[in-house]
């Protein structure tokens, strides 16, 4: 390591410590509570994730895409679980797995871009809105930044979505291992003058600080089951380590892509070959291993993992053994203190809107209100009396 970089690192550490001492202690800081937002990108099909066991319309409208009975794990008399989520069944049995039905936007949009924009900003009315609902909530409730990382929240992947804007500081973990060496040239450091140079210098310092943080070796307990070998598993392992490296960080966002199942969603001949099943299985196995680590570390009680997706899918299947973009869908919430079971209302398959899509039963703002309540964040960027929280905890 060259001399100049050592100096820069020292400066960065010094800055970090100094910043920590200057931070005010906010009385309403959610001590120890953690929220992990899991974006299921592409539009997850709620009807096949938590299928109906007895509704004849389900099999009528989806002759080959409806899950075969053998591929459904019953959750009571009426509904079941896609067997891809088998790894999470123990959570349901312990009452730590909640399903929210009929969840969607008051102004459904079938475009990935605009629907995502609505969900991320918590605002179905303004197509120009760009600031994330959770970023606004963190800012309005004055959640303090974590002293170790200087960040309010951590985002895995490139789309900060609900955590974008509002002046909050994010720890962005695209791929920390991608970084090369980037010390400020010793000479230039003394001559920083333009705003661009100042900004570059600051970003380099922040980046080195986050690299340092992520590089600290953390001994994690062995999970109860194996992590499948894919990027999302590695991100969850990084997240588990981050939760130890930076205990004051309380908000996280991850994303799993691939839910836009226009074709080959289900393979009726071999149910374990369908795209949706495979994706759900990998995701749930990764989550199960991750959750077992959190349980062993005593973090599960205060953690909430909440999924969301930009829309559900059409009830009627299309011509490619898949489904097209739809409206309301089902999300799931897991955590040590979550009230397991069914919440919301499943939209009846016999009462569809003019486009043949499910009617909205629960506005997503109520879902967000519930998650914010779990974190102790009373101030939200929408009217909380109009959109009361569900009793998820």
């Amino acid at each position: 390591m060259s001399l100049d970089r050592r100096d820069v690192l020292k400066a960065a550490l010094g800055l970090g410590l100094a910043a920590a001492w200057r931070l005010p202690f906010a009385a309403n800081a959610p001590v120890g509570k953690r929220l992990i937002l899991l974006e299921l990108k592409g539009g997850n099909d709620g009807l096949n994730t938590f299928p109906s066991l007895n509704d004849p319309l389900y099999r009528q409208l989806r002759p080959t895409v409806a899950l075969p009975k053998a591929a459904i794990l019953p959750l009571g008399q009426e509904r079941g679980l896609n067997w891809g989520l088998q790894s999470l069944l123990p959570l349901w049995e312990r009452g730590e797995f909640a399903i929210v039905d009929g969840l969607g936007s008051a102004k459904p949009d079938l475009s990935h871009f605009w629907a995502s924009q609505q969900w991320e900003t918590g605002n179905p009315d303004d197509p120009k809105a760009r600031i994330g609902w959770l970023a606004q909530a963190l800012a309005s409730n004055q959640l303090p930044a974590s002293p170790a990382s200087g960040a309010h929240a951590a985002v895995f992947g490139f789309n900060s979505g609900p955590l974008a804007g509002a002046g909050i500081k994010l720890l962005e973990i695209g791929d920390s291992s991608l970084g090369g060496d980037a010390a400020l040239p010793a000479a230039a450091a003394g001559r920083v003058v333009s705003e661009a140079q100042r900004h570059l210098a600051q970003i380099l310092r922040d980046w080195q600080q986050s690299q340092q943080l992520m590089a600290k070796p953390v001994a994690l307990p062995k999970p109860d089951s194996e992590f499948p070998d894919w990027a999302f598993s590695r991100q969850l392992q990084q997240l588990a380590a981050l939760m130890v490296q930076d205990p004051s960080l309380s908000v996280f966002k991850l994303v799993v892509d691939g839910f836009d199942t226009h074709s080959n969603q289900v393979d009726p001949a071999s149910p374990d070959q369908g795209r949706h099943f495979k994706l759900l299985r990998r995701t749930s196995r990764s989550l199960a291993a991750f959750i077992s680590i959190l349980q062993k570390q005593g973090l599960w009680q205060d953690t909430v993992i909440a999924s969301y997706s930009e829309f559900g899918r059409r009830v009627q299947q299309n011509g490619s053994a898949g489904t097209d973009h739809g409206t309301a869908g089902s999300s799931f919430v897991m955590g040590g203190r979550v009230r397991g079971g069914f919440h919301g209302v499943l939209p009846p398959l016999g009462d569809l809107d003019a486009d043949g899509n499910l009617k909205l039963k629960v506005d997503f703002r109520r879902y967000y209100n519930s998650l914010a309540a779990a974190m102790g964040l009373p101030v939200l960027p929408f009217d909380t009396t109009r959109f009361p929280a569900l009793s998820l905890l």
Partner: protein
Amino acid sequence: MSQKSTRIGLWMYRFASLLACCAITGPASALMPAEVDHLMQRAAFAAAPADYSRMAALSREQAVDLLLQEAAADSAAPAMPDWAGPPWSIARWQHQPLDANSKKATPMYWAATRQWLLNGLLNAPSPLRARMTLYWHEYFPLIRQKHAASALRRDHRFYAMALGDYRELLTAFSRDGATMENLDTKQNRRGAINENFARELLELYTLGRGHYSQGDIREAARAFTGWAVHRNSGLFLVMWNWHDFGEKTVLGQTGRWDGDDVLAMLYRHPRFAEYQVERLWRTFISPEPDAQQVQRWSAQFRQDQYSLAKLLRLMLNSDAFWSAANRQTLVKSPVELVVGGLRAEGVKGDHAAWMDLWASQMGQRLYLAPDVKGWRGYTDWLTVGTIGIRQAFLNGMSSGFDPSLLARFEASGAYPAFYPLDQARADSAGLWQAVEQARRQRGSVSISTMMAMQDRAEPPAASPMRNLK
């Protein structure tokens, strides 16, 4: 490593003698390599190795004129792929069902479109024209278009118009099919006004906020009713049965205006020239335009019949452009960084998939701006998330790409489906071979790489200052 240090030592000797030559015999105003660097990084992505030698004996004015002459001579846009041809072409019809309806094929066409533009920017005979084509691409952002072919054809058109009469460019923009799809022009009809096109025309492309009223937008939208493109031919036409022939008051003038009348009104408006001068200032000179200078240049711009080439000549020769206070005040966009990175090593050819991978990872996927305002650019390009990737690219261009880098890209989960990993590995190896071959031919690493390298042990890393320009 002694071979390398010998080579570097040899190069430094050559550099020193070049400098000495200039000091003794060259004209007093001859460009120093750092100035060639400054000019080319701003106006042409980066200085290619050949640029240093061919500009060594030139003054600033001569170098700028050289760039403009090249641009004038290069008026043929990079060849359009056959699937992007006009809607009536046979080749297009062969692809049409895929382009229009297949969800699977459409991402393939968008990848091909991005790569067409990236290769075009890298291999253009005139890097200034290429830079201006990128400028217009970013100035008129496209978001979530359905049809890749019309977007490609628009940039193909703009290539030839990039340095011409600004009014002609704006008219071509307004009549273009991709614009109409993006801004709902065809949905705008008498009795069912859609203000989208008129709003963005006034707010983002010609006058800027504060120089028109909401009423102006509404009335201008009425004037543009009926504007459309023919479905099969893609040619501009006006559906007069949808047109609102009534009296309209736009920017204080009343009459039975149609779309062309409104455009003519905008072209006469004093803000029209100023707005463009300000935008170009922020792109080429510094983040804060000097109001007086802007006024002077706008007046000249109007006098020169809105010739963009003449305006650029004015700007690139100005004290503001060359001032030390304005160096390193702008941030390179991802596309500038990757195209410039290859150009700086004298590498040409088909490296589009590679460039697309890096630029997308750095946050700029062409033809997919975040919203109608486009990429904010400037310091927005530098975040904790993107700085690592930018540095990895810069280091890779200096000393070779780490083979495990691609595996880490794939593991990051953001790896694009259109670019198979083994293809990327082959392209990485091929690109590095090209770089090494070019260096061997020149007998050294490129000057810009030399300037970028820090004085440290192997492997040399690129200075993060290369993120700025």
